[in-house]
Every structure is written in structure tokens, then in C-alpha cells.
């Protein structure tokens, strides 16, 4: 996997998630960060830090990105959300416009 094709998402605790850029683009917010003109640190290094999102939630978000890609390609599976994660995940999803 080439470095340009991936992005690193960093959680509040500093946990790093390296995922495909294509998957990360499911989030409108990340898409804007990575494609906006000008030299944002995010655009240059392909790294985005989320001081408000915990590792547990960020992991779930990454899973959702990949699930969403597959879903859009016609693979109809269910995306299960544990009830105890719903609130935090909802807030993160709201922030990420995903």
C-alpha cells in the first residue's frame, strides 16, 4: 500500500489508525480536510488528529467507512452498533458528516 493512498487517523489517546484514503473519504469532514487547497498539516502529512474521539469510537468509525464502501458497491450486510456506543458514535458521526 503506497503512503499517498492511506491516511492516519489519531484518537484522543494517541492511538493511530491507518486506513485507505478512499475509505476515509466517506466522511465529508475528512474529505474537506484532505482536499482543501492550501497547506494544512492534514493535507501534507495525511494525518488527522481527533482530540474529541476515543479509540473505541474511532475504530468503530473506521469499520463503518469500510462497511459503507462495500454497501455502496452492492454488498448488503447489516452494520451492527452496540447500544452502549450509540451516543458517542452519534456525536462523532455528526462531527465527521458521515
Amino acid at each position: 500500500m503506497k503512503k499517498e493512498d492511506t491516511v492516519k487517523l489519531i484518537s484522543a489517546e494517541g492511538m493511530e489508525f491507518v486506513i485507505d484514503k478512499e475509505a476515509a473519504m466517506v466522511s465529508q469532514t475528512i474529505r474537506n480536510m484532505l482536499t482543501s487547497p492550501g497547506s494544512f498539516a492534514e493535507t501534507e502529512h495525511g494525518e488527522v488528529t481527533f482530540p474529541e474521539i476515543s479509540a473505541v469510537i474511532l475504530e468503530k468509525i473506521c469499520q463503518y467507512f469500510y462497511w459503507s464502501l462495500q454497501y455502496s458497491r452492492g454488498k448488503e450486510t447489516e452494520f451492527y452498533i452496540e447500544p452502549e456506543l450509540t451516543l458517542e458514535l452519534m456525536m462523532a458521526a455528526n462531527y465527521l458528516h458521515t
Partner: protein
Amino acid sequence: MEMEKESELVRRCIEAACRSRESVEKWRRQRRTLERLPSHLSQSLLQNLLRSRILFPSLLEVFKYSVEEIDLRGENCVDAEWMAYLGAFRYLRSLNLADCHRINNSALWSLVGMTSLKEVDLSRCMKVTDASIRHLLSISTLEKLWISETGITANGVALLSSLKNLSVLDLGGLPVTDTVLNSLQALTKLQHLDLWGSKISNKGALVLQRFSKLSFLNIAWTNVTILPNLSSLECLNMSNCTIDSILEDDDDKAPLVKLIFAGATFMNEAEAFLYIETRFLSLLDVSNSSLNQFCFLPDMKMLEHLDLSSSMMGDDSVELIVCIGASLKILNLSGTKVSSAGIAILAGHVPKLEFLSLSHTSIDDVALSYVSSMPSLKVIDLSNTDIKGYIHQPGTELHKDSTLAALQNLRYLENLNLEHTQVRDPDLYPLSSCKELGHLSLKCASLTDATLHHLSSLPKLTNLRVCEAVLTNSGLDTFSPPTTLRMLDLMGCWLLTEDAISTFTRKHPQIEIRHEVVQILSTEQQNISNRASPSQLRLKTSRGNNKPGKVPISQFFVVDQRLKYSREELLSLQFPPLTLQSPHDSGIEIPKLQSDRLN
């Protein structure tokens, strides 16, 4: 209270959070997270819990720091206990309790001293009386208040004069007198005032001039005959009034946008529109009115919505509609004397027309070719007409030409009503090529199983009514409905049995069936979820088309009973049990009828 459009994952999270009482228990202790929830998310969550029927009073507490708007319209469970929790909502700005029949004065005591509350809707909470007004007076921030059809008297209304920030006040159906209206003069910020069915007279109408910002006024069903000029008025409803003169003034003409004179009697028809600035009018409703002449129409160049139903409009006046045809989007000619010849005059002059009702007119199949040349039509009501679906070419008595085929030209046609026409199965076939058709209504005792067969290929059909037809069990069994179908109304198809319907429901769980044998409970739930949005409800009451009191309901009730029951059955129904068992009961039927009409 339109919800912000949610992103996909947010929607899924809310669904997961509202799946069951157990899932609620998993998150309800996450207090700090709940307090941090952006208000639009917690509102969505709250409304979804309500819709899923798993919201209970003590659960409300978790929302007290985040929710700003709450809509509990028609929720019969909402009582004093709910209100006790809601009273503690720190940032609550808007509270809708319309049709919550358990709300009474002591329940509203919880609202005393709320500091953020700006909007309260108590419409039709019948147990709310003058004592509630005293509670409301403590909320000095109130800007919008709806108390129509409550138990509040003239004395209670008079007290409202101290709520100086009020800009919207709905007093519909309350016994407001001229004296009381006089005492409300202090409400100088009023923009919207609903006084339908009140006791005000011409004397009270003079007071209205003191409300210098008034832009919306509803005085339907009152004794006002002379309305003085109100220079900022944009919407006026004087339905069912006897009108002598309105807005008489030569200089300062009101910038009217909407005018509703449904059922009005004009004492001086020639001068009815003399003082009205009609150039900017976008809606005119003169249905059921006493008007004979329509020569005022050509001036209304911006008119989009014209309701002439049950008026004296006839073919000889259609030329006047043609003059303003370029801007028209909605045209209701139902119950008029307009015939196919009139539609021929109209054709080609209404490029933007989306909605056309010709029900209860004498139009026949000739009109269809003219209707099909109105390119933007989305909704057509042809019910109760002489439409047959075919035409005999002169001289060829044996050869039938299909007329419904002409509707295939209408690229945007979404909704078609052919109830109580003479259209038979074979003539329906051309409709199967109407690609956008989502709603189709048929009601005729001659329709058979073939009807269902013809319609199974409609790619966007969501709602299908085939009522009082001779559909058979095997016909229903072999019907392969379009995948988009969500509602199938088979009321009055008397050959269908409970077994056949439940088999169909099991095979197609996504389709809601309406039929006499379907349990009443599921229908009730549907009506709750299908309830019209607040704006639609307000539009309805503000239009004042529904006569104050319960008259419309009892009318429907009588009609329904006569149609559905024999004399013996009616006699046995004289003392019905208190619980609603009959699917014909008015309480169940009415919301459906209304929502149909709103569509």
C-alpha cells in the same frame, strides 16, 4: 420543527439506540455524554424514542440539558408526570402539546417560571382552562401561543395582555368578545392572530387596526362584515363570513399574499375586490362562495393556487383563468359547472400547473386529451366524473379508443384519482406505462382481479387504493405487487377473507393493508405516524375550513354509517361498546381522509 437532515451513521446510531428498552438501559446512564449531545441530535433521539413507543417520563430527565424543542402532539400518554420532567428542561424553547388530552391545569403548573420557553402549543387540550393562563403568565419570554379549542374563556384570554412579547396568538374557537380584543391592544408585537369562530363583530374588527404589525388574520366564522384596512396584512381568512366591505382605503393598500373566502357570502359582489391589492396574491380560495363573476382574476398575475371548487365557475368564465394560467400551479375546479369544453379552453395555457382537481364535474373522456397537454401535472383528481376510459370514434361504434393512454404524455404524473368513474379493467391498462405514478385511487364495483394485474408493473407505485371492487382471494394471492408498494387499501372489497389478507401480509410484510378485517389496532398506530406536520395542521385550522366544533366529524360519521351498514346493523350499533372495535368508526377514518386531502 423540521429536523436537520441527519447523516447516515447518525441515523443508524439513533435507530440502534431506540431499538428496545434494553438498548435504552445500555446508554441512559452515560450522563456526561448526554449533556454534551448537540441539541439537534438529542431532539432526534427523543422524537425517535417517542415514535418507537419506548419513551417514559423518567427517561425524559436525561434530556433536560440538551433538548430545545419537543413535539408531543397527539400523545395521549402525556400527563402531569411528563410535565413535571419537562418543566425542568433548562433550555426548552418550544413545546408542542396539541391534542394531548390528558393535559390539564395542574399538569401545566410545571411550566411556571420556565425561562427559555418561547413557543407553547396547547391546541385542543380541552381540560385546559383559565387557571392555566395564570401559569403561562409567569413565562414572560413567550412569543408564540396556540390555545385554540381549549376550555379557556373570555376572561382568561383578557389576561394574556401582559404577555408583551407575543407575536403569534391562536385563539381559534374561543369565545373572544369585542371587549376582550380591546384589552389585548397592549400586544403591539402581534403578527399572527387567529380568531376564527370568536364572538367579535365589526366593532371589534376596528381594534385590529391597533396591531400595526399584523400580517396574518383569521376571522372565519365570525360576524365581521366590515374589515377596516390593515396596512401590513398578508394573509386573510374570512371563510364563511358575510362580507360587506374589506380593507377599504385608497392609499395604503395591504400587501396581500393569501386570501381565503371559502363559503363566504358577498353582499356587494361588484366591489368585493375593489380595495384589495391583488397583484401580489399567490393564493385565492373562493370555494363555496357566493361569487357569480370572476372578472377580478386577470389582475392576479402572480396567483399560484386558485381554489374555485363548488363555486359558480363555468365554461364561460374559463377564459379568465387562462389570463393568469402562466403562473398557476394548483387549480381546484371540483364541483363546478366546468365541462370538457372548458378544459379545452384551458389546455395549452397552464404550463406550470401541477395539481388539477376536476372531481364532481361533468367532464368526460374528451377532457383527458386536453388534460394530457398540461405538461407539469403531478396530481390529477378525476373522481366522480363521467370518465369511462375509452371513446367511440364517430362512425365506428364497435371500435373503442383508449383515452387514459393520453395520460402517458404526462412525465411527472405522480398521483391519479379515478374513484367513482366508469373505468373498467381493460381500459386501465394504459396506466401501466405511467412511470412516475406513485399514488393511484380506484373505487368501483366493476373492477376485478385484472386491475391488480395491470398495475403490478408500475415501477414507482407506493399507494394503491382499489376499493369496493370484486377482488377475489385468488386474485390477491397471484398479485405480484411492485416492490415500491407500501400501502394497499382494499376497503369494501367484500369477497376477500381474513385468511387471504393475512397470507398476503406475511408474503409482503412491507405493505400495509387496509381492509375491514385488518385489526383496528394496527390502523390506529398508522394514523399516529401519518399525522400531518405542524405546519399542515396550522394551515388547516388557520384556513378555518373545518367548522368549529365537531361538525365535520359527525358528518363523516353519518355518511360512513349509511354507506356501510344496513338498517338492522345500524340499529344494533345504537349502543356500541366504549372501546373502538369497528373499523368504520369515524375516529379512525377521519385522519386518513384528511391526510389524503392534504396530499
